[in-house]
């Protein structure tokens, strides 16, 4: 079905479109780039998919471009004529039109035509036709006059017929129309008189033509609002004779003839034409697509700001002047079938539903991904534009909510927010980010405003990340809101190391009494009190499990200066050095992601006694871990052994010189040292017996092996 897609404008302002519209829009040698020539002095090269001009050239003040610039597809250069006779040729690198190639011709040019596969062809006002190359070889050559006096060229077009360029132009003299078909290569010209039937009196307002092997079908839009078709043979039977062709009615009354700025007609494909003008019923101008086979209106689009009565169609884009800006309306005609029309056939692909690749393509998201993703770029731009456009008339709930946030009371915001969160919109991510930014913005302006509940709700949607709302955690740090910080640490995947460290500082320094008041998620903390009973039994299990007992180690001699009884230190019930609330907060830190290189410098800023406290807690967690065979902590979502050990290493790396000077950390360091030493010796023992392990494994395999040959019974069901 033929369909017009959403329109978009190429940036206006560059063009000085007069009341008569533009001089012309021509294709460039790259698809989706167009040369737009205005009635003044300027030629602009637009890239449609980017909606922006790529280049702009002007002639000198006082000169006037008289025919639209075209691209020479064979060389990639641009050609324009100003002041009727002066030909200019330039390319993308040129800046100033004054300094480019110039040729002055001996006669006035009506139009330059350029299509793919041939050189540009110039049509002179007197009806003579020249190829560009032939003309440039001798610019001052004499140009013959073909047309009689008073005969004016109304419309012209160049076709490629079997790889030969064919120029057709239509002239008018005293209300009679003549069609000339010029074979550019063979220089044969045939002339036809256009005979018109009942529409004798009406004036033809617009022409368009398409070519179909043997015939050129010229369609004309008359002032009575009807479209007529005339078939003209490409190869004339007798070129000398003046022949007559008759036009026949194709579509009746598609537009009202009295449009203020004229009407335009263009052929889209074999079955469709586009008509620009005001329909009979309405006064506003409108672009409509008609099916000429079934004589039905396929689709139409209102253009309320008025047009210049000009319409161009290249590739899949309809271009026109809408108001003051050049507007592009993509036109699509997808193959349809009756079954499709009746809904029996599934559409092969629904353009509305984007197939999400199951793998995250990081390269593509960086912008240098696959070609297919590139191709979707323009569509995405269009869609965004559509959202912007549609948001103007009806304020979407998100916008309403934003205004609520700016003005209303906390209670009201909370209620509105709950309503909003209940329905998930497609651009939920972006809106949630906007909401948080809005809330934070108000917080900064009004220090008394503290929408904690709202923020908590928003964080719990799981769509927020640090980069979406960088201000949120900063605010929480400033207010030492540990609950919010814990929530952020749990939910955000991309917290910078400096912020993680700031959180850690707060968690270590905050007073116990203020912790008791905060509602902290205690999920990751198991009940330390309960496990105390089992400790005396469990501690030796760890030792056995490693196959190494520190008590029996020779290093004991070097630990003799330890004042406390080392035996006791190992066997004593490990008690948690921090309150459960603080433990929960520290666990959130342990779970957050980090990069060592970025975290280390920040860790150095933490005071030594806090470091010691954290180390003690980590060591306690490690001891708890080693109580069971799987080396895990009890509880829901506890820190893992790797996280604990990594953090111990990090803290020691960052602060070893400080910690080693603190007397209260001494015992801790000694126990850690012993622990590492024992690990090393375990591993060296393991390395020694690795060969034996392998042999054991081999023996084990052989036991499983059923031998080289057996007869077995198998039942298939």
């Amino acid at each position, binding site marked *: 079905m033929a369909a017009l897609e959403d329109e978009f404008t190429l940036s206006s302002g560059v063009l000085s479109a007069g009341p008569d519209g533009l001089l012309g829009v021509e294709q460039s040698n790259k698809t989706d780039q167009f040369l737009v020539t205005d009635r003044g002095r300027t030629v602009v090269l637009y890239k449609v998919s980017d909606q922006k001009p790529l280049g702009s050239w002007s002639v000198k003040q006082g000169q006037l471009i008289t025919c639209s610039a075209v691209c020479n597809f064979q060389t990639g250069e641009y050609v324009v004529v100003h002041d009727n006779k002066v030909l200019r040729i330039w390319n993308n690198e040129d800046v100033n039109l004054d300094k480019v190639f110039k040729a002055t011709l001996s006669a006035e040019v009506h139009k330059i035509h350029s299509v793919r596969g041939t050189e540009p062809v110039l049509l002179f006002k007197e009806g003579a036709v020249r190829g560009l190359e032939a003309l440039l070889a001798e610019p001052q050559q004499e140009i013959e006059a073909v047309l009689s006096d008073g005969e004016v060229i109304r419309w012209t077009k160049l076709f490629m017929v079997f790889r030969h360029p064919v120029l057709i132009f239509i002239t008018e003299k005293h209300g009679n129309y003549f069609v000339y078909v010029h074979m550019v290569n063979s220089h044969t010209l045939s002339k036809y008189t256009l005979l018109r039937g009942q529409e004798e009196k009406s004036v033809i307002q617009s022409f368009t033509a398409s070519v179909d092997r043997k015939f050129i079908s010229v369609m004309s839009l008359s002032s009575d609002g009807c479209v007529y078709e005339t078939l003209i043979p490409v190869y004339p039977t007798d070129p000398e004779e003046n022949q007559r062709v008759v036009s026949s009615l194709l579509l009746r009354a598609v537009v009202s003839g009295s449009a203020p700025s004229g009407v335009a007609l263009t052929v889209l494909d074999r079955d469709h034409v586009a008509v620009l003008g005001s329909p009979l019923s309405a006064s506003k101008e409108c672009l409509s697509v008609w099916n000429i086979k079934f004589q039905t209106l396929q689709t139409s689009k209102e253009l309320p700001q008025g047009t210049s009565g000009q319409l161009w169609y290249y590739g899949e884009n309809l271009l026109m002047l809408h108001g003051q800006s050049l507007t592009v309306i993509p036109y699509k005609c997808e193959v349809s079938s009756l079954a499709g029309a009746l809904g029996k056939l599934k559409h092969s692909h629904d353009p509305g539903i984007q197939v999400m690749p199951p*793998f995250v393509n990081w390269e593509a998201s960086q912008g240098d991904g696959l070609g297919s993703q590139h191709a979707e770029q323009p569509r995405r731009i269009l869609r965004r534009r559509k959202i912007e456009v549609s948001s103007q008339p009806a304020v979407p709930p998100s916008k309403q909510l934003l205004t609520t946030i700016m003005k209303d009371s906390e209670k009201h915001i909370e209620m509105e927010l709950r309503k909003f969160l209940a329905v998930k919109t497609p651009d939920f991510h972006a809106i949630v980010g906007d909401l948080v930014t809005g809330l934070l913005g108000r917080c900064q302006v009004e220090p008394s405003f503290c929408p904690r509940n709202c923020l908590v709700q928003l964080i719990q949607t799981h769509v927020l990340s640090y980069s979406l709302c960088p201000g949120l955690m900063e605010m929480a740090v400033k207010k030492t809101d540990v609950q919010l910080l814990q929530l952020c640490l749990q939910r955000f995947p991309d917290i910078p190391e400096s912020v993680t460290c700031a959180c850690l500082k707060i968690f270590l320094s905050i007073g116990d009494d203020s912790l008791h008041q905060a509602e902290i998620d205690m999920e990751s903390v198991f009940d330390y009190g309960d496990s105390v009973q089992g400790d005396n039994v469990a501690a030796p299990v760890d030792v056995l499990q490693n196959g190494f007992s520190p008590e029996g180690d020779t290093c004991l001699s070097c630990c003799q200066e330890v004042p406390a009884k080392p035996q006791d230190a190992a066997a004593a019930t490990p008690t948690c050095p921090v309150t459960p609330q603080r433990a929960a907060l520290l666990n959130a830190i342990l779970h957050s992601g980090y990069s060592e290189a970025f975290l280390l410098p920040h860790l150095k800023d933490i005071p030594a006694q806090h470091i010691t406290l954290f180390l003690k807690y980590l060591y306690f967690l490690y001891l708890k871990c080693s109580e069971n065979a799987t080396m895990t902590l009890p509880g829901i979502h506890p820190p893992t052994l790797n996280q604990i050990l990594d953090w111990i290493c990090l803290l020691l790396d960052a602060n070893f010189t400080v910690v080693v000077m603190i007397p209260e950390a001494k015992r801790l360091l000694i126990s850690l040292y012993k622990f590492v030493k024992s690990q090393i010796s375990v591993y060296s023992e393991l390395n020694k017996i690795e060969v034996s392990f392998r042999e054991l494994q081999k023996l084990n395999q052989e036991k499983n092996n059923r031998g080289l040959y057996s*007869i077995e019974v198998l*039942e298939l*069901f």
Partner: protein
Amino acid sequence: MGEFKVHRVRFFNYVPSGIRCVAYNNQSNRLAVSRTDGTVEIYNLSANYFQEKFFPGHESRATEALCWTEGQRLFSAGLNGEIVEYDLQALNVKYAMDAFGGPIWSMTASPSGSQLLVGCEDGSVKLFQITPDKIQFERNFDRQKSRILSLSWHPSGTHIAAGSIDYISVFDVKSGSAIHKMIVDRQYMGVSKRKCIVWGVAFLSDGTVISVDSAGKVQFWDSATGTLVKSHPIANADVLSIAVADQEDSFVVGTAEGTVFHFQLVSVTSNSSEKQWVRTKPFQHHTHDVRTVAHSPTALISGGTDTHLVIRPLMEKVEVKNYDAALRKITFPHRCLISCSKKRQLLLFQFAHHLELWRLGSTVATGKNGDILPLSKNADHLLHLKTKGPENIICSCISSCGSWIAYSTASRFFLYRLNYEHDNISLKRVSKMPAFLRSALQILFSEDSKKLFVASNQGSLHVIQLLEGSFKHLHAFQPQSGTVEAMCLLAVSPDGNWLAASGTSAGVHVYNVKQLKLHCTVPAYNFPVTALAIAPNTNNLVIAHSDQQVFEYSIPDKQYTEWSRAVQKQGFHHLWLQRDTPITHIGFHSKRPMHILLHDAYMFCIIDKSLPLPNDKTLLYNPLPPTSESDVVRRRTAHAFKISKIYKPLLFMELLDEGTLVAVERPLDDIIAQLPPPIKKKKFGT
């Protein structure tokens, strides 16, 4: 379905050769793989990674380099000093040409594909022009001190980089002179090695040369100034191979520790145009040396001493999650190396240079599902038949009665007559094979052992009548005019009337053996045929394709059978289509006309055509149903595909009689046990 006695055979002592080189061809999406025994295999990556062609190995032809050139021609070069071109249509060696530079260590085709460059033992780099039917020596570059182990062209074709021992040379192609010599550091992590061998080089279009060497480094050099730009120490052992993507935004290296590293050109910061090479992903799919790597647009391909060919898709390049996104590990050839004599219960195993004949044991006991029965007679090794000459065996076959064995190498065809007297076997070679029977791609005996069918590599099919101790050539089916495509698969109907033959790409042809003329051609299908068989009684031809489709074609009616149409209409179960090894054998038993036995490397399946087909909702691999379940439920859930995955990797399976199966397994552990030990890595601590 019923109970089977399964002869579970694990004494097929087959060890695939290690992979030496891989070469990926972007135009045809094919991968050429050469092995240490000189075998070259061609995998079609578009056809579900099917190994569609192979060239048998040769003892003296150790391949060191493999490359594709313009027009999809394949060349190899090796330590015998010869450059070999392969004929991909007739599946034989087109010609071999001595480069006269001693053993060849490296070879590469020019970016345009019209020239070949070889690096030799004597330090010479030789340029060959590729002409339409041969190659022609053009000139030598400046001679270097020591052997040239690696070569790479600049994409513009103006310069080349050559890796040697301790240094890399950059040559100007026009003048043939070395313009830079870049010395590679021998030291690695403070330890000075005796020599630093540059195992691989890659020349990028911006003039960067990437080298990998025996000191475990990946180094970036500026070829304009001859200076070292960056060095990545990545392994404690040699880095053996490198391959760069066509876009030059990623490359892959393989190390002797079995690790494959992926390097990518990534922006230093997001949105910045400055890019640098970063080691992004390590993959450990190999246990031994990764001798060779290749980089297809969507996957990393690696192979080495551990004999696996590993194809690791790059997830960011895969747009849809289909089966191409899965890791592939190809270990076993996609053709049958085993044939079986049903009447005498014999198995013939084909190795590279010998054949083994085994007799299966027997038992008198019976048991229930899963029981191992006591053997009343163990399996016997009857015969060990060594080939003469350096060539590998291409194919072999034992007749159904067990009294004929035939095999072929690239230049000779052998036919033996076996006589069984009690426990003694006597073997007699049938001499005076005709000249046209020089080399066969596939051999098949008719069910009654009276006829022998030979597919020669000229595309013709020979029918030979076997008499007691002699033979008579009956007929040769010539290939269709204009084609020289070799036939790789044969199937004969049990009544001996029909012969089906399939090539690598053209369709399946069915010949009438009685009238000695072409009967019909099965409609062409896009994917290559992996196995063929003709059913008894009905003469239905069953064809398995590499995309896991199975068709049944009635030869007398010259059309697909109703059952096949029904299967196509409903479509195969999605799990069936997702299997990643091709069906390599199809079997029947005349007493079970409705059953088709098929197997790939990881399962076997008996299709019972009388049962309903499974749809995507039914369980394809049905586990053993609990015995308490009533018969009604069982019948309702029963479907046509009876699949068992008990035996794997499964190299061969056949129905010996109505209730007896033989399954030949080759456990991977047994293969690993025969490989040289890998580089020892510390397991505990670091």
